[in-house]
């Protein structure tokens, strides 16, 4: 450790390479646990029931993942800043019904306009959440628990006992989940691109990093001159907009939409986010990890289905997995702390 590091060549010295390798390892570590669990699940299921790896089933799993992966991206933005958005399931439901019912009321309406409508509905809900959390300084748990019920209430009042049925939807809309490119569903590719873009934004832009800073230490964030209220507001607005978008996608997928669409999704999404390595108290984790968490939950659902296990088991197993993931997360962060302490004592920095 006696080499002098030249400021102009930051990546040249052995010290550097070693420490960078360690950080890389650490970063990969957070998502590698979940990937291992996912791979194990796929292997075990395929060994019992080879049909699991049929391209049809893979497509089914991927399409099922899209809605949750999108919601997980929005939730990651919020959770990373030490907040939580419980209203996304209700936002999804409201957006799914209101946007898809446009096909029945306005003949020949463009699919793009319908998607934008869903996005707008979600954005409005996200604005409301963000304003109350950022300006009202009400804990987000309380605010979004309230809007969970308020938005669902509006949905129920609006929908009444009715529903949107598949026959009112144009094929250009219902075909969206079926389109494939090189055997991969186009929606899955699109969502993957959106999630990757979201993760890149959070990693490589100041405002994205500032969300992590806020979640890591709100007091220090304020002292560093970060506009905490504005950033948190933006996170909620984005989460709402993404949930609105996911609602339209949900409608295209399920094609029968009543007032119960998306009920309970918020907790499944939070489960996916936490399983994907996002720290529940903010400060670390990535949207890619959260999306992999969503993929894992969808895989479990499908695997239990393919194995002929009653869907009654699914929730219990998802809950158990959440516990497992949280314990794993704890173990990993302890290991991490130990590794860093070891490095410090060895490096004598």
């Amino acid at each position: 450790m006696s080499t002098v590091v030249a400021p102009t060549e930051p990546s040249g010295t052995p010290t550097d390479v070693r420490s960078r390798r360690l950080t890389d390892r650490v970063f990969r570590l957070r998502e590698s646990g979940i990937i291992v669990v996912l791979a194990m699940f796929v292997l075990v299921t395929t060994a019992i029931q080879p049909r699991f790896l049929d391209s049809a089933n893979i497509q089914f799993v991927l399409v099922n993942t899209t809605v949750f992966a999108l919601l997980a991206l929005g939730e990651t933005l919020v959770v990373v800043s030490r907040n939580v958005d419980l209203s996304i399931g209700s936002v999804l439901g409201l957006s799914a019904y209101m946007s898809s019912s446009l096909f029945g009321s306005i003949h020949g309406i463009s699919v793009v306009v319908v998607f934008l409508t869903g996005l707008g509905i979600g954005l409005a809900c996200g604005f409301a959440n963000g304003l109350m959390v950022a300006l009202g300084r009400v804990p987000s748990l309380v605010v979004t628990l309230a809007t969970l019920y308020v938005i669902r209430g509006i949905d129920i009042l609006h929908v009444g006992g009715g529903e949107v049925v598949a026959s009112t939807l144009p094929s250009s809309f219902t075909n969206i989940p079926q389109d494939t490119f090189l055997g991969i569903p186009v929606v899955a590719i699109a969502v993957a691109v959106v999630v990757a873009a979201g993760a890149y934004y959070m990693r490589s832009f100041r405002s994205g990093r500032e969300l992590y800073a806020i979640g890591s230490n709100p007091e220090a964030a304020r002292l560093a001159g970060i506009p905490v209220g504005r950033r948190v507001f933006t996170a909620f607005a984005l989460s709402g907009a993404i949930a609105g978008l996911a609602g339209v996608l949900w409608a295209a997928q399920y094609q029968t939409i009543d007032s119960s669409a998306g009920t309970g999704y918020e907790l499944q999404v939070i489960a996916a986010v936490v399983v994907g390595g996002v720290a529940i108290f903010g400060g670390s984790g990535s949207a890619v990890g959260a999306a992999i968490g969503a993929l894992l939950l969808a895989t479990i659902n499908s695997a239990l289905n393919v194995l002929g296990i009653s869907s009654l088991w699914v929730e219990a197993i998802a809950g158990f997995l959440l516990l497992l993931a949280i314990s794993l997360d704890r173990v990993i962060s302890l290991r991490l702390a130990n590794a860093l302490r070891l490095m410090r004592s060895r490096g004598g920095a």
Partner: protein
Amino acid sequence: MAGSGTDETPGLDPKSAAGDASQAGRPSPVLSLEHAAKSFGAVQAVVDASIDLYSGEAHALVGENGAGKSTVVKILAGVHHPDSGHVSVDGSPVSLSGPADAQSAGIAVIYQEPILFPDLTVAENIYMGRQPLRRFHRIDAAMMRARTLALFDRLGVRLDPGRICRGLSIADQQIVEIAKALSLNARIIVMDEPTAALSAVEVARLFDVVTALRAGGAAVLFISHRLEEVFEICQRVTVMRDGRQVLARELSGLTADDLVRAMVGRQIGQRVRAAAHAVGEPVLKVQRLTREGVFVDVSFEVRAGEIVALAGLVGSGRSEVARAIFGVDRYQAGAVTISGRPLRPASPGTAMAMGIGFVPEDRRQQGLVMDMSVQQNVALTSLSRLTRAGLVSSGAEGRFASDWATRLKIRYGRLTDPVSQLSGGNQQKVVLARWLARKPTLLIVDEPTRGIDIATKSEVHTLLAELAASGVAVLMISSELPEVLRVGDRILVMREGRLIAEYARADATEEKLVAAATGQFAGAR
């Protein structure tokens, strides 16, 4: 390493960089605080503080606990706005109404325990909100890393910019803060007791950093209780006492004794207790108590009817010893006996059953349940006596509380009001009432009068004296020397985790206590 800062350092004013503090006829100060005053409610923390800082110097700010140093730091940090007086930077007055103002005036404060983002990397902590950008406003991580390394190079330290801050030692965290200050082109760097939590090696490295900063033209305001450190790295000194500047000059020619005399020099208040009183058998015996890294080999006893004061600097391990005795914290070695019976470690329940009462240092956090009523707080530790058929009788609770409130002259609106509505002094009396109600044989009080007004303070002192007169053994921890001398029958002094001196009340003087607490004390117990 110190020489590296003499090159052209970007961001530092070249004119000030050329200035040499030790020369006579030096240029005008880079920062001056003139006749600042600040009070909090009835407490006047700073009465008349002035400090001049020159580019390239390390300037010591010393004084007893409560002399007003921390308030001065907070004024410079923009956290507190002075009631009167003003701050000027480079001769022009500045208004510091927030941390951002201090930052743009070129002032950086390094706190004893820095506030960092534990989940983010060292480099991000330094550049948060100011990350270097490349095309499309993306963060230039490579540039950020290179600049961080360059900063560390200027400071002569080695730290990996890419590691996350969780788990960094306090010393490394301070380095991160100092690097941040440097990246902000801070020319005035205030270090508030930076060495209090550092090991000897870390202190040496910090001093090298201070030398590098000086060589780069920065002015360093160094606050420390360790006078030998002051003499090691500082060129000038300002001494504060009771919120006033009492001495400001070059250190050369001064001795530690001179500083101690300047820090103390105060009339001692009248003792609260009559000279003669009966002291009984030992109640508390502490033998060779050790908690690794916190306190070592602490032995003493407190007899019935006696008030033993435990003096020393904040952080010398006094509160930790008290917490270990009461069983809040564990200890590795040693034993505690109460009236000859061994006390089980790490069990506050047993400690209470054996007659120990404990009034903790931070009454808001540890002593009171702020949302509960006055009567509930008073009765909290006596619930078993007020219980009928498993239920707490609120009538009995009220009578019980009002009885104690009268005895201690607690001023309150209604007994059912939340205790948070009471003044600090009355809150403290509620905590005392709670423990007195249990009729303890040993009462431990930690900073019993911190932040309370003078009248209530003296009531608390009288109360402690009466308690001792009735045969209770009292162990009082206090950072206020006048209080220690006023109330204590015997005075023990701790320094850096060790009990290093003991004085009978007749022998103790403020000078002796300060000298012992700051390590200027030659003799041993």
